[in-house]
């Protein structure tokens, strides 16, 4: 049963209906956002697009996962489901939260980093499951495709901005504004400080960029890689390449699902914990 499911999902990935319907294959069109339900509030554009639908699906799944695995029918002797939930909780606590957060703040910020981890993991993962959400039809059937909401910079930048705001808010709240901003100034000879302090401030802003670009570019490049290898068949208009490109695309697909999806969620949550923790307890 499980093997059949894997086989079917791999087969669905390689079905070339989309490219055939279009006649011309261009992987970048997969990442275009079309307004499905236009909502405009003045200058604000809150339209529901493909990414928004994937995010809603991701949040629903994250909540369901948390409730089913960690809240529902808990026993003293855990079954498979509960053991799995406890493993996720243990990873989030010992590998992520305790890496960066000081013990006095762990009760307050563990829920944030743990839900960040679970949410990014789920959103990344449903990005690799073919779903009929491409918004196109082929002879009346919805076209199936893969797309991750985290391969859009707006999503990852919003998540990184959350961490950025929380970091400085907590730094000021626990240390007071004077002591917190003083901790940015390292011990160095006075003339060098003119050079070092702007670099330190720049470093704080670069965190925002590196945090968001790392996740966004990883997911985008992963999807482009898979789509391009399959698209090679249609660009060169030959079926002889099929065994080669499908093998390579499947290898990349497995690499992304097994390693990249989990690692990126883990990294984002761990770095958030480290940043918040280092603001609560500055080194100087």
């Amino acid at each position: 049963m499980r093997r059949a499911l894997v086989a079917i999902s791999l087969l669905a990935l390689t079905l070339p209906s989309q490219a055939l319907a279009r006649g011309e294959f261009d992987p970048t069109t997969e990442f275009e956002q079309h307004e499905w339900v236009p909502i405009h509030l003045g200058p604000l554009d809150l339209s529901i697009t493909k990414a928004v639908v994937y995010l809603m699906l991701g949040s629903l799944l994250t909540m369901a996962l948390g409730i089913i695995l960690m809240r529902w029918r808990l026993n003293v002797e855990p079954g498979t489901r509960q053991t799995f939930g406890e493993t996720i909780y243990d990873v989030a606590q010992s590998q992520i939260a305790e890496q960066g957060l000081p013990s006095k703040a762990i009760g307050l910020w563990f829920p944030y980093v743990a839900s960040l981890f679970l949410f990014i993991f789920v959103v990344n993962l449903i990005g690799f499951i073919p779903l009929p959400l491409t918004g196109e039809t082929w002879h009346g059937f919805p076209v199936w495709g893969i797309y991750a909401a985290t391969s859009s910079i707006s999503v990852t930048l919003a998540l990184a901005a959350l961490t950025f705001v929380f970091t400085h808010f907590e730094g000021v709240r626990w240390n007071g504004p004077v002591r917190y901003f003083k901790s940015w100034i390292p011990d160095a000879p006075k003339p060098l400080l003119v050079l070092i302090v702007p670099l330190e401030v720049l470093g704080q802003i670069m965190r925002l960029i590196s945090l968001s670009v790392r996740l966004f570019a990883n997911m985008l490049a992963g999807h482009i890689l898979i789509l391009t290898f399959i698209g090679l068949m249609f660009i060169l208009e030959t079926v002889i390449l099929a065994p080669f490109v499908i093998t390579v695309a499947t290898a990349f697909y497995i690499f992304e699902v097994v390693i990249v999806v989990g690692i990126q969620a883990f990294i984002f949550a761990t770095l958030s914990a480290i940043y918040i923790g280092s603001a609560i307890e500055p080194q100087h």
Partner: protein
Amino acid sequence: MLATILAATSGDVTKAGKAIGLALGVGLGAAGAGVGIGLIFSSMIQSVARQPELRGELTGIQWLGFALTEAVVFYGLLGSILAFVLV
């Protein structure tokens, strides 16, 4: 030499320049990150060979370092895509 080649080329030379820039950016970024990832895993193997009981603790650090290094490719990719689109 260069003048003869330039004289012989017909068509859009800027397109070629953009393609070369994109490929160079990604390629050099990948070269640097490749060396970095190799270093991380080589020191991981050495550490585990010397002290196998530390494997559990080291694995977390190893993946953190892997992801931080791997991201360097994507900074290169992003820079070259910007160059490709904007120029």
